């Protein structure tokens, strides 16, 4: 995503970066700065050293406008400067009473996160209450405020610009009386958890699927890994062994001509701008002899049962015949 060409005369315009390319935005900022610096340097070759100031000023302006997008401590009432890329807005409010509250927030893209905590006043009804915001357990500097009691509640709010993967974490508002609300930011979780392994056979093929919930139009990037919790190895499509087919919200890894070495854990990762989620799938490879053993056992049992039943029947019918003959003989004797 390359920004429009930045020239010296276009300093005042926005750096047009798409919202979900935070990292790309920073990169393009740097690229734009590089380009303008190169152009300025080029001009500098011909002009006099007095135009150093001419060089510095646009570069400085460019830097500050790029740097502005990283700001967190923005007063919500102030309109953001025009150079901040247009992010989606997400607002969350929590009302606290006496217990801590945890709120899970699913992020699929870069957002401007507007968080608000309202603490209901208890019997004391103190006129003022101090509170602060923390991130991942550590207090954010310059965030401690004293709020006044308003309509039986103490309210505190803050805007967070979630513009990169590093910004994703747990944000909390903590009040003086130790009551807190935790907002856990995370990429979307996989809905289906497989606890059973996928079983397949040597020399056979198997398809490992991964599906993410979401809207129809969403298009995700998918990556596959093989390994375990600590060490994962990226899988790239090799024509005779792996085949990866990804489409929007689903991705399929096809393993061809399985061997015992192919068994183990496979991870599919759905990549979002704010991070990626992994889903483990276990693959088990066995030979065909394994299910054949119980099958043959059942077959033998069936044959035995059938033979036993027929033998019993033959015996019973023989008994009846001999009994019948005896009866006939008796009857003849009587006659």
């Amino acid at each position, binding site marked *: 995503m390359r920004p429009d060409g930045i020239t010296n005369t276009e300093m005042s315009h926005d750096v047009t970066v798409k919202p979900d390319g935070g990292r790309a935005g920073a990169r393009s900022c740097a690229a734009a700065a590089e380009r303008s610096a190169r152009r300025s340097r080029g001009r500098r070759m011909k002009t006099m050293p007095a135009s150093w100031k001419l060089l510095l000023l646009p570069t400085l302006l460019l830097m500050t406008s790029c740097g502005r997008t990283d700001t967190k401590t923005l007063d919500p009432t102030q309109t953001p400067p025009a150079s901040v890329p247009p992010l989606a807005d997400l607002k969350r409010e929590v009302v606290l009473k006496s217990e801590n509250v945890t709120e899970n927030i699913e992020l699929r893209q870069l957002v401007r996160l507007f968080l608000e905590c309202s603490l209901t006043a208890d019997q004391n009804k103190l006129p003022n209450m101090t509170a602060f915001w923390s991130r991942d357990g550590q207090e954010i500097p310059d965030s401690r405020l004293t709020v006044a009691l308003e309509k039986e509640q103490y309210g505190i709010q803050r805007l967070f610009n979630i513009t990169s993967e590093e910004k994703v974490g747990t944000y909390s508002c903590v009040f003086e009386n130790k009551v807190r609300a935790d907002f856990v930011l995370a990429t979307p979780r996989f809905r289906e958890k497989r606890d*059973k392994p996928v079983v397949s056979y040597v020399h056979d093929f198997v398809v490992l699927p991964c599906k993410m919930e979401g809207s129809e139009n969403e298009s995700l990037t998918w990556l596959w890994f093989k390994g375990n919790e600590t060490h994962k190895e990226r899988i790239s499509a090799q024509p005779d062994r792996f085949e990866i087919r990804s489409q929007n919200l689903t991705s399929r890894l096809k393993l061809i001509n399985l061997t015992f070495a192919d068994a183990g854990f496979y991870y599919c990762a759905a990549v979002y701008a704010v991070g990626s989620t992994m889903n483990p799938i276990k693959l088990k490879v066995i030979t*065909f002899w394994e299910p054949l053993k119980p099958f043959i056992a*059942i077959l033998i049992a*069936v044959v035995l049962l059938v033979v036993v039943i027929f033998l019993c029947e033959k015996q019973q019918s023989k008994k009846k015949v001999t009994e019948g003959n005896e009866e006939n003989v008796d009857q003849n004797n009587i006659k």
Partner: protein
Amino acid sequence: MRKPERPHEHCCCRATRQATGSRWKEVTSERIMSPAATDAAESKPPDGGWGWMVVVGAHISIGFAYSTPKALSIFFKEIQEDLGASSSEIAWISSIMLAVMYAGGPVSSVLVKRFGSRPIVIVGGLMCGVSMVTASFGRSIVYLYLSIGIIGGCGLCFNLNASLTIISKYFLSKRPLANGLAMAGSPVFLCFLAPLNQFLLGDFGWRGSLLILGGMMLNCCVAGALMRPVTLSCNPSAVAALKNMETTTKHNMSKKGRCLTNARQFLDFSFFKDRGFIIYLMGNTMYIFGAYAPIVFLSAYAVSQGVEEYSAAYLLSIMGFVDMFVRPGTGLIANSKWIRPRIQYFFGFAMIFNGACHLLCPMMTSYAFLVGYAVFFGVGFGMVFALIFECLMDLMGNQRFPSAVGLVTIIECFPMLLGPPTAGLLVDLYGDYKYLFYMCGAVIMSGGLFLIIMNILHYHMLEKEKAEHNGARRSPETGNQDGVSLSEAQREPTEAESAPMNRDPQDPSTDDTGPDITDHF
């Protein structure tokens, strides 16, 4: 094969059988509660003894027949991923299997009449086993359609038809109980196969599981081995004589006539002249149309009401568990002397109960209520299915039952395949499950009401016809009359047992070809 004896050596069973055509209507009209008459035969069914082992065999056979298409759906997700098929393509496997199982009815009934139940069930079991084993090597979805769908469906069809027929041969006075016990095989095997399939899937994958399932279906052969043909006390030579007569008449007919009779063997359209049969068929069709859709959509409905997925799956298990006990229970109740004469009404009542359950379902919003609904659904479903074939046996009698059941199953094929998709269409159109339940409940309830009302009319008209015939019967007839009274006299002691039911009792009949061919087994 026995050599056909000369026609004049006959026993009572042959005499009455000879008069089939002319006397049919007369005997039919004489029955009040069970309009179908079969030919009089002096060998009454054992009603016990080895019959209970036959019930065990039928239990296994019917159990596999009804539960396999449902239990296979556990493998579908894995198969779908491996073979790259869509959900609807996968669902066709079950549909083809069910369709073949029902549509193969007439073929199966002809084979059962020809060869007896035992060889057919053994062949059916072998076919099922082979189908599953070949399916485990499948590489494409069409291969699975052929192996599981067609071959498996054929095998199950043979099983079902033959098992029902042999019950009708072994039991008369305890027949509702035997039917209830045999039909209980369906929920028992479903309860047993579903977790087993899950376990096998986790250990062996879908290929290994299909292989092992094939081995288990070979147990149908054991069930078949148990189905000893009924031994006749009647002189079997007379039966052979009858066959001789049949073959001579066949030779005399023209080729076209022979073709027609052969065709009529498969689909005997003379059944459609029987009023009781038509009533049963229509009521049954309405029931089958609405019966399966609620089962298919119950968990989805529960999830939409806010129940979590595991609990929603339990609802179906609850229904199956209740069903397991209700079927034999219903058989026991239907066997009692108050209900048995009015068994057709009891059947209609069971259908109305089932329909009422579905109509009340949309009001069930909490999980506790849904569990209650599942319990009552199980009760209603079990009651209907315990009686569904018993009523047909009651209507048709022993002789005509195999062909009748073949005809009924092939006609039932259509509502069974159309029901769930129509219900699904309703859900798609309105986005709400309640219309599905309203539709199913309404159709089933009207089917039940139809049965009750039409049966009242039917028996009323039968009584009128009987009164007329009693008047007309004063005129002397040939030796047939003796045959009738002789068999009736013989039935007096049995009548005392199952008193009000057998006012004009059904005839337990002999298996036409039983002693000739099945003796070799």
